[in-house]
Each structure stands twice: as structure tokens, then as C-alpha cells.
């Protein structure tokens, strides 16, 4: 159909999210409430088998001490495992296990190119691209070519910057946000007023990106750190479709 060519150029951009791997720390009210719930649960509960056994053994020990070692035929010959000993053994086992630290090395160095930092929040990919005559930090974008859908454009953008072998799940065919801007008057013509950038969202499935990174200037940042890199208008539009 011979429609007049629209003066807007179309771009597809991909917002690639690395989902959090550890839980966020509890806030003060949440911690207080958790403690209260535990207390109430303890008060409403009955004794368990282990606790009854512990109480009985404590009774026995007390009686044996009071009776001043009258019945010696019981204690030394039998090796009875007391509930208290079991508890201590379990405690020791727990202490001997060392879990991986929640704050990683990359956190401490503030190495923003690594995927291992800020494990409790979403990380987004930002790349440095040349728009017009400026080098800007943007979500990876690529111009739309006729014959492909916008989702295809966004996937192509991801592949251009990270290579073909990334496993990412794109969330649906529809764009999540749009950034519209007009070119500066010097470049503006009748047919080329400005550009519309459509944003798509994807979740990163694999955490291994060893084969990736064609360009050197990339960053993985959280939503709060976006303000350090993106321009204000762009940032406003991007923040609208990002949940934290």
C-alpha cells in the first residue's frame, strides 16, 4: 500500500535484565515482625518429642545428683546419648559450614562490568553508542529494517552487542516503552524529523557470558545507578517500565 513514508525513524532497543540471585535484606519493620511471629508461635506451641526427651533427661540428671551417686550401676557402663549432646553436635556442624558471601568481590571493587555484583537486585545492560556525533550510554539499540518485527530488531540489537549465544527470554511481542526525540534542526529534513526508540524487556537465563562482549564499553547497572549514565529525558521514559 502506497502510504506516505513517515518522517520518524524506528529503532528497537533491548533492556536485558539479570534477575536477583539472593534475597533482599529485610527492613526494620519486617525484622521486628518476624521476631514477634516467632515468639507467638513458640508460645502457642506444645512440646515436641525432642524437647520432652530433653526435659526428662534433665530431671534424671538432677535426681541422680541429689541422690548423691547412690545408683552407680547406671551411669558409667551405659553410653547414653543425651538430647543436649545431640543439639551441641548439630550446632557444631552448622558452624563448620561456610556459605558463599552475599557481598562479592565485585561489590567491594565496584567493578561495574561484572555480573557478580549486587546479587540481590536487577542488573541492566548499558552500552556506549554513537548517535549523530555524540557518544552516549544507552540501552543497546539498532535501527529497524523493513521485513522484521520490532521484537526481531531488539533481538538483533542484543545479538550485535553480546553475540549469538546468549539465552534470554524476551517477555512478549509488545514494546514496554517508547522514547521519541526530534533531531537537531541542522539535520532535520522533511522526511527525517526524528526517531522513535521502542524498548523491549528480556530476562537473562544463563549467567555465563564468556563468549560475549564484542564491544568494550558495556556496563551492568541497577535501576538506581542508571541516573549516573543516562540523560534525563531518556531516563524518565526508561524508569517508567522498570520495576525494582
Amino acid at each position, binding site marked *: 500500500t502506497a502510504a506516505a513514508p513517515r518522517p520518524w525513524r524506528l529503532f528497537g532497543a533491548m533492556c536485558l535484565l539479570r534477575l536477583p540471585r539472593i534475597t533482599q535484606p529485610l527492613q526494620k519493620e519486617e525484622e*521486628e515482625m518476624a521476631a514477634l511471629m516467632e515468639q507467638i508461635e513458640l508460645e502457642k506451641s506444645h512440646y515436641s518429642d525432642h524437647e520432652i526427651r530433653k526435659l526428662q533427661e534433665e530431671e534424671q540428671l538432677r535426681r541422680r545428683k541429689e541422690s548423691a551417686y547412690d545408683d552407680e550401676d547406671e551411669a558409667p557402663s551405659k553410653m547414653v546419648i543425651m538430647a543436649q549432646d545431640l543439639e551441641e553436635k548439630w550446632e557444631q556442624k552448622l558452624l563448620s559450614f561456610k556459605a558463599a558471601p552475599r557481598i562479592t568481590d565485585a561489590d567491594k571493587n565496584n567493578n561495574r562490568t561484572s555480573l557478580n555484583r549486587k546479587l540481590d537486585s536487577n542488573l541492566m545492560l548499558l552500552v556506549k553508542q554513537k548517535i549523530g556525533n555524540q557518544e552516549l550510554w544507552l540501552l543497546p539499540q539498532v535501527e529497524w529494517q523493513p521485513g522484521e518485527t520490532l*521484537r526481531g530488531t531488539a533481538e538483533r540489537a542484543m545479538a550485535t552487542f553480546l553475540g549469538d549465544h546468549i539465552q534470554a*527470554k524476551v517477555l512478549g511481542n509488545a514494546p514496554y516503552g517508547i522514547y521519541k526525540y526530534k533531531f537537531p534542526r541542522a539535520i532535520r529534513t522533511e522526511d527525517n524529523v526524528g526517531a522513535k526508540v521502542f524498548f523491549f524487556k528480556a530476562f537473562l537465563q544463563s549467567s555465563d557470558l564468556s563468549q560475549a562482549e564484542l564491544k568494550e564499553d558495556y556496563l551492568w547497572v541497577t535501576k538506581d545507578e542508571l541516573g549516573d549514565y543516562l540523560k534525563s529525558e531518556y531516563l524518565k521514559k526508561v524508569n*517508567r517500565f522498570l520495576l525494582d
Partner: protein
Amino acid sequence: CLFSFLSSWLPQMVPSRGSHWQSSLLTLRASLPMRAQPKKKKKVDPRREQAQKDRMKKKIKKLEKAAPEMIPIEDFVTPPKYLDSSRVRSLPPLSFEETERRVLLMKKWCLFKQKQDKAEKQAIQTLIAAQQEALKELRLESEELYQAAIRRDEGLFPFEREGPSYTPPLPGYDPPEGKCVDITKVYTQ
């Protein structure tokens, strides 16, 4: 020779037997026709077996018609050993300050959760608004791209993902060996 001796010894009251196959002289006539009976049994047996099968089928139908038994939900039934009063915990009663503190904390929690919920709903609304705006602009651009965008994505659901844990996975961790024996009771109706 013993028989002949007996017959000669006893007075003539016991009739003499010809052979020991004859149990008594009176049954002599009855023993021969009895061997002709099996021919009648062949007709009665299939009928008897048929009657037995019918009775069994009727019993089975009655059992099936009865309503199926409810499967007991094990979570709702307290095992009797926990109803024992010796298990009741003995704790000191709560002080007035403690109850006050608890009530105030619950009220703060209520407010906290309400704010959190409101913020979440607001965020979802902005998300939807942003998407609608993007789709509107796309429609202005080209109808066919718009139609491609609003098409359902079949590969998206079922969407599975493992949730976050408290600590990140330890590289090279070897979990201890163990065997899990499943002792859940399975009921059939």
C-alpha cells in the same frame, strides 16, 4: 477263612455275605442305580455356577452404588499423642508492656504493608500506561508492526524460574549423600 468261621460260629441270625464290596444286603439294590446319577449333575452345576456368579455381581453392584469414602485429610486431624496435657508448655504470663508493644507493632506493620501494596499497584499502573503509550505510537507508525506486536507470544508461558536463595551458590560444593524415603500414605477411593 475268618468270615466262614464267623458264619459257622454265630447262630443263623446274621445273613452271610458274598463279598466285602456289599456294605449290607439291603443296599444291594440301591448301589447299582446310584452310578447313573452323574448324568443329572451336569445340568445342575452350570446352573448353580451361573447363580453364584449372579449373586457376586449383585454384591459388586451394591458396593459400587454406595457413595465413595472420603479421603481423610491428614493435616486436619490432630494425632492423639499431641492432645496429651503433659505437652503443654509452661511459660510466664505476658506483662502489660509486652502486650502493648505487640499491639503497637502490629499497627505499624499494617501501615507498612498498606504502603507497600499501594506502591506495587502504582508501579503496575505506570507499567501498563507506558506500554499503552508505546503501542499507540507504534500504531501511528505502521499498522502491520502493531498487529505483529499485539499478537500473543506462545513461547512465553509456562514460565519457570528458580527463586532467589539467602546466599549465592557455592562453587564446587559437594552436598552430602542421603536417601529420601517417601512415607506418604496414598488413599484410593
